[in-house]
């Protein structure tokens, strides 16, 4: 039997000063897949903020399809680099955070990089969002860094944990 595998690479908890970005650098190429689990809230003066992904410092060659429900209807769209959505400072219940999962197979291979994202943003108010997110970075480079950003900043207690998964 193969060895168990879901290995912590790095974890970030945002401190009292907030953070404009969350960065994972020097990602080792020793795993097969990456799994990122996050919980976010924004200081943006709105009830929601959208989160975007940057890979290897690149913001180009991304494409996306998402399927979203907001509590009253379902819709679909395309927003390049879309990662997820989270509650923000104005209009969303205090202490509510998003819950997001990103799965990225074959991140160190030479094929284009596709990824699967699930995100929920619920704050005991309307609208709430749940979204399924299909993303693609049309680049053959191995992924060595991953950054997340939003219109506002990540508030204290936002968390992001990156795991490596190996198929051997």
């Amino acid at each position: 039997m193969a060895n168990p595998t879901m290995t912590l690479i790095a974890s970030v908890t945002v401190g009292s000063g907030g953070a404009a970005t969350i960065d994972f650098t020097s990602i080792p190429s020793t795993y097969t897949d990456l799994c990122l689990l996050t919980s976010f809230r924004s200081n943006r003066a709105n009830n929601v903020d959208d989160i975007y992904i940057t890979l290897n410092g690149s913001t180009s060659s991304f494409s996306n399809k998402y399927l979203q429900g907001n509590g009253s209807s379902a819709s679909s769209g395309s927003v390049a680099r879309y990662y997820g959505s989270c509650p923000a400072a104005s209009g969303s219940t205090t202490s509510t955070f998003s819950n997001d999962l990103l799965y990225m197979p074959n991140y160190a291979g030479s094929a284009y990089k596709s990824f699967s994202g699930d995100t929920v943003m619920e704050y005991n108010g309307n609208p709430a969002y749940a979204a399924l997110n299909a993303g693609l970075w049309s680049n053959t480079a191995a992924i060595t860094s991953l950054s997340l950003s939003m219109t506002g900043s990540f508030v204290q207690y936002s968390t992001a944990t990156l795991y490596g998964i190996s198929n051997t």
Partner: protein
Amino acid sequence: MTAGATYTPIATTTFSGGTTYTFSSIPSTYTDLVLVVACSSAALETMILRFNGDTGTNYSWLRILGSGSSASSLYLSNQSAAVGGFMDNGQYVNITNIMNYSNTTTYKTTISRMNAPSSYAGAFTSMWRSTSAINSITILGDSGGTFNNGKATLYGIAAA
């Protein structure tokens, strides 16, 4: 840090062509299974799953889809396969969770997250009306397309 014996690779295969692959002799020692298929295909088609080689009309499935411009849903009963997602000519990834796969009392259900960024985002739920423990999973395209430039890996998750 290793997070316990809860995500164990059972088998993996690398694709550079080929129209089907079977994970066989799946041990019954886990609680749940996770199948990750990340490849490209020549054209858009459905990636289907068959359990224990069953080609009878013993499956049903429901999907929710987003095309980038509209959302839709579809349910079909008495199908000849479960659905694990879509294949397309971009790089796609389909992730299927198969719960309680080795019990011999209940029918088997699956949830698949489908990510074909050139075509659709969505999810499928499927049911196989069999009380047999799942000991093999066959993946193939419903139009006979090939699996290119990628991998498929089957993981086992143990509750204890």
